[in-house]
């Protein structure tokens, strides 16, 4: 089974990389990009029987730093 974890900086935490991407898009002529937030996707290849609670524990302990990041888990 597979799980996909999306990690994003929380709202209110400045994302200077996203801002740099937004500026670069503007420079390329893509008007109307009001904001860019950059995160990461972590794909996990898991043994059968791994539960969503296990993946949540992985997020809490390592995959995300909940001081600055939020996460979402997709299983399947």
């Amino acid at each position, binding site marked *: 089974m597979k799980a996909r974890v999306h990690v994003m900086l929380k709202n209110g935490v400045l994302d*200077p990389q996203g801002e740099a991407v937004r500026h670069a898009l503007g420079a390329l002529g893509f008007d109307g990009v009001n904001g860019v937030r950059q995160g990461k996707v972590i794909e996990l290849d898991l043994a059968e029987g791994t539960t969503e609670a296990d993946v949540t524990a992985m997020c809490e302990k390592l995959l995300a*730093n909940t*001081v600055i990041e939020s996460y979402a888990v997709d299983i399947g």
Partner: protein
Amino acid sequence: MVWHKDSALPEGIDMVGIPGGFSYGDYLRCGAIAAQSPICGAVKAHAERGGYVLGICNGFQVLTETGLLPGALLRNAGLKYICKTVGLKVETSDSDFTAGYNAGDVIDIPIAHHDGNYFADADTLARLKGDDRVAFTYTDNPNGAQADIAGILSANRRVLGMMPHPERAADAGHGGTDGVALFRALAGALITA
């Protein structure tokens, strides 16, 4: 020196220093993987027993990832790696790390980091300030750190994390000696302890 895969510190140790560098290539997040290495459990236990811990640069990042210090270090606001000497204001002399300075002193200490932009939520920042746990602030914020924070103390004032490198301003040959007072004060505290 202790290997990261060791799970115990030498007996009777007074202080642990976690140096700068790029542990695990900064993969995932700066300090995140190192914070899970076997030795970090022993460092945490040492701090919880009241032992001294000094984390500099990547060491500070490791300390926030272990939870020994609050907050986190984000990418520099200007996105660039910065390597230069900056002015630091000593915010408190009330710790065995900063007792060699007077609160309000301005010292010149080098920084060399890409992810030194200190972040904590408003409640944490208020607590740090209210408890006099901000050790150093930047006189001219180079990285976007909240409240200009360059270094903070734990609640028991025995764990210090800071992005600047006092060990790189500890000999005339380094081009500055403003970091010496930190190590001298700490050594004095350990000798009398």
